[in-house]
């Protein structure tokens, strides 16, 4: 109840310019030369001081990538990307890797402050900030700071940038990297394998319940720069972690590419809850600029009775192409996908999930809420498959689409594959429109059209918002309202 009011207040507080993260930060930058070739891959690897095997891994990916083609099956349209017109590495100039916050460029800290991201551990500990969340902040190609590392280390949790993990825990990275999303999985994942620059690494040891929320904030700042981050999370037997990522970018006229890979691994009885609030710059109302968000996210429930839960709130990006998926390998494992995808203006979203049931008694649940406004196109694409050994697997899918206005589109493309007679699939889908009558009814009770829309939309996405960690649910609610501003009337 309070949250609804809050949304309404926040919507009101926003002025006409809807994307409030559109500012850019002036910094001295260390950039690789424009374009992509083996030398660039070598340069990235060298910049990170990586071991030889890692360089070989990257070069192998790069060579394979050269033979691959961009996927064209998604319901999105955009001009061909010139991969040689992108900078693959850009890092704020720093003398050495910062050890404490005081060594980080104040301009970067100021940027995160503007974004409302709590980096100041002291303040959090002193109670200035109410929630305690460990943050890894990635600025263009590099991680600039990770908070609460020491405190997490006490319980054996490793939370650091993937570059650092390659130095400090190379055996862990080598053991798991690319085991969920293989190097040659798809065009963008292969590109990522060749040129990924940073991302987060999380390792939760056996039996440990991670004592705080972990989160990573990604910020693209530089012009013409791609962001290729790689995140790897491993939850050992009986452990639990909740992880959240947030993303923003400045307002730029040209399109920028973001091609990330996220790999999650759960062992027996372990659980990973992965939440995303994606708010990359969506482009202007005519579709100029904005981020191309081409992301591969996959979790592998390797152990018995393990669980991976994806929750995503997607409001940004000019184009979103992303399907956080679960491979339900361990018997009794469970995959969940909760999604809110909002599109407005000229945005294009093609998103959904894959639930691959391999083990016995595996279950999955998909709740997808698509909201389309403006002239946007919003597609849910989902695959559920039951392997012949997946005895007694169950899936429940619910896809709801809400249309605002009469120039947008909503599409639902479910794929189901069943190779086991005992499998149970349930699929529900609805498409509705915020009706003039609903709006008038709310207005008759005193709500203005924007408040009325926010209220109706909040009701529509409630099931998914409830899945987000509390402190992010409000942020997500706010984002949704902002994204839809100007869509009424």
């Amino acid at each position, binding site marked *: *109840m309070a949250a609804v009011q809050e949304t309404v207040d926040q919507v009101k507080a926003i002025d006409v310019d809807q994307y409030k993260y559109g500012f850019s930060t002036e910094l001295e930058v260390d950039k690789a030369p424009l374009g992509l070739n083996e030398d660039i891959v070598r340069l990235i690897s060298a910049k990170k001081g990586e071991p030889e095997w890692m360089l070989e891994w990257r070069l192998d990916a790069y060579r394979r990538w050269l033979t691959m083609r961009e996927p064209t099956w998604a319901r999105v349209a955009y001009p061909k990307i010139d991969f040689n017109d992108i900078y693959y590495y850009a890092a704020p100039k720093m003398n050495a890797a910062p050890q404490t916050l005081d060594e980080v460029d104040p301009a970067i800290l100021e940027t995160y402050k503007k974004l409302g991201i709590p980096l100041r551990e002291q303040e959090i500990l002193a109670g200035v900030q109410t929630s305690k969340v460990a943050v890894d902040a990635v600025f263009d190609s590099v991680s600039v700071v990770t908070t609460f590392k020491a405190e997490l280390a006490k319980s054996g949790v490793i939370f650091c940038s993937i570059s650092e993990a390659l130095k400090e825990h190379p055996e862990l990275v080598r053991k798991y990297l690319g085991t969920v999303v293989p190097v040659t999985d798809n065009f963008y994942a292969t590109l990522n394998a060749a040129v990924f620059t940073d991302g987060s690494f999380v390792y939760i040891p056996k039996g440990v319940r991670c004592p705080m929320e972990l989160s990573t904030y990604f910020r693209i700042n530089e012009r013409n720069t791609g962001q290729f981050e790689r995140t790897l999370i491993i939850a050992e037997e009986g452990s639990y972690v909740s992880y959240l990522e947030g993303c923003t970018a400045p307002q730029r006229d040209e399109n920028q590419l973001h091609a990330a890979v996220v790999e999650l691994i759960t062992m027996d009885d372990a659980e990973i809850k992965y939440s995303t609030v994606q708010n990359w710059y969506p482009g202007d109302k005519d579709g100029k600029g904005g981020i191309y968000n081409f992301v591969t996210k996959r979790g592998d429930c390797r152990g018995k009775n393990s669980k991976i839960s994806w929750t995503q709130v997607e409001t940004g990006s000019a184009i979103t192409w992303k399907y956080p998926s679960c491979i339900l390998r361990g018997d009794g494992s469970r995959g969940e996908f909760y999604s809110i995808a909002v599109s407005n203006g000229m945005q294009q979203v093609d998103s959904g999930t894959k639930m691959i049931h391999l083990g016995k008694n595996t279950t999955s649940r998909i709740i997808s809420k698509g909201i389309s406004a403006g002239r946007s196109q919003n597609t849910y694409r989902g695959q559920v498959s039951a392997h012949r050994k997946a005895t007694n697997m169950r899936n429940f899918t619910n896809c709801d689409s809400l249309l605002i206005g009469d120039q947008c589109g909503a599409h639902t493309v479910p794929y189901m594959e069943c190779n086991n007679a005992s499998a149970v699939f349930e699929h529900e889908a609805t498409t509705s429109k915020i*009706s003039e009558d609903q709006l008038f009814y709310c207005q*008759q*009770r005193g709500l203005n059209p924007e408040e009325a829309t926010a209220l109706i939309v909040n*009701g*529509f996405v409630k099931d998914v918002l409830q899945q987000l960690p509390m402190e992010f649910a409000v942020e997500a609610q706010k984002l949704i309202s902002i994204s839809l501003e100007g869509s009424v009337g």
Partner: protein
Amino acid sequence: MLEIRNLHVSIEDKKILNGLTLTVHDGEVAAIMGPNGSGKSTLSYVIAGKPDYEVLDGEILLDGQNVLELEPHERAAAGLFLAFQYPLEIPGVATMSFLKAAMNSQRKIRGEEEMATADFMKAVRAAADGLGIPQDMLRRGLNVGFSGGEKKRMEILQMALLAPNFCILDETDSGLDIDALKIVSEGVNALRDPKRAFLVITHYQRLLNYIVPDSVHVMAHGQVVKSGGKELALELEATGYADYKTLAA
């Protein structure tokens, strides 16, 4: 006080109201009766400001203020309430949340403080009890899965909470069984007040046995063709609308 003067309204080029004139004084309960298609529901929508209706001429004054210049939510904040014939469903929005959002929005427009949550909850519970609305219904999505009678009771609950000074009841009796009709009527009667006026739109005299009107107006072809006291309703019940249909034609 509500004054409607020479109101001409069309929808999609079809003329519905043809110079309707009507005055409802503070404290008065005025009943509007008339055959199907006489423009009763249009009248209620136009007063509340529903889009799609085009006002060609005339004015509607609420306490001297021309409501035609106001947006629907501003009219609501000015004290206008329409109990819908078919209340809308808002899935996922708990009834309680909706009530609070509505109440605070109206207060904000009027430049008043928000109501404290505890006071608000108390007020909702009291009003709900009076209308026989169980608490768990307040936690469910607004009107979702409610029966016809429950929806109508919910309209009266909102009316009680928002404390408007001009209430329009659009065929509130339709779809109600006799018990629900009694409950709803009692709810309305409890809100009768020297400062509050009602416009009760109905087909049937039955409702007026429970909500006894001060005046009865007969509508036909988009005009008020006859006005009288409560006995006019009884007369209509006996004779039907046939005479009026020809009268205005």
